[in-house]
């Protein structure tokens, strides 16, 4: 397995796509990972709330750039095989 910069880029692109595809209402709320269900103002945010914050912020921030990155990657793969 070649662990080059290109494969790292591809793998991270796939993971980010996977995170962005999780639907807020249909899926996350059902599992108990919804945005409104974890709202502690305690001293230290739990691990779960941090993970959910991370998922939500990735979905908010990376939606648009991911579109362009995906288009670029598809073009590259079509050209270079």
């Amino acid at each position, binding site marked *: 397995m070649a662990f080059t910069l290109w494969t790292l880029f591809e793998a*991270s692109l796939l993971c980010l796509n996977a995170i962005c595809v999780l639907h807020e209402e249909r899926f996350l709320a059902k599992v108990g990972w919804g945005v409104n269900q974890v709202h502690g103002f305690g001293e230290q945010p739990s691990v779960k709330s*941090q993970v959910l914050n*991370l998922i939500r912020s990735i979905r908010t921030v990376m939606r648009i750039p991911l579109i362009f990155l995906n288009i670029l990657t598809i073009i590259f793969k079509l050209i270079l095989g």
Partner: protein
Amino acid sequence: MPGIPDQVTAAAFQYGFNALGQSSQAVGREFEKYVPVSRLKYYFAVDTGYVVKKLRLLTFPFWHSDWSIKYESESQPVQPRYEINAPDLYIPLMAYVTYVVAAGLVLGTQDRFTPEMLGIQASSSLAFILFELAVIFVAMYITSIKSNLKLLDMLSYCGYQFIGAISALMAGLLFKSIGYYVVLTYFSFALGFFLMRSLKWQLQSDSAANQQDPYAASTSGTKRRFNLLILMMVLQTFTMWRLSAHLIAP
């Protein structure tokens, strides 16, 4: 240019140079936001004595007793030249280049060398380092461990594992498989000990920072710090192994 008085030409040139200077300054400022270039100088302020002592410390950290770092201002430690416990980027950079060359050497002794392999090794190990850094930063965010360690500090602590990889490669060259594995396990322990001692006081959890008494670490914070350090040690051991295992003669 004919027909245009010299003063206008001179003024035009003057204006051009001014604009160029301003735009290059603006570009420099923007670049500084993403890659802290002025901070980089701190990490390369080393001298020969520091390098020798630090290498000795990395290979045998068990006798060293004083792991504290002197600070000269709020968040800026003393230059690595004067403080052996401070992280630097010179050793990791040199170790990275030496690793690529050593990989080429080891491959050459097995008749497996092609010039493309050098490039592949270089980019592959860079990818490993980036992956490690990403995992560590995500773990630090998830467990809400605040620390003063910036990107460049983490980069330097992750770069020290190349020393282990190089030594293991050289041992594998001289003593075949058994020497390689012995040196690899020794360096895993030595590097783990080094990381444990160096980073114990530099990572602190959020609750410890909020409490009245900043010197007491809460129990959950200590456990998270400990787990994060274990994660770092495991990551670096795994990476050291992956960086060198495929280069050893079967």
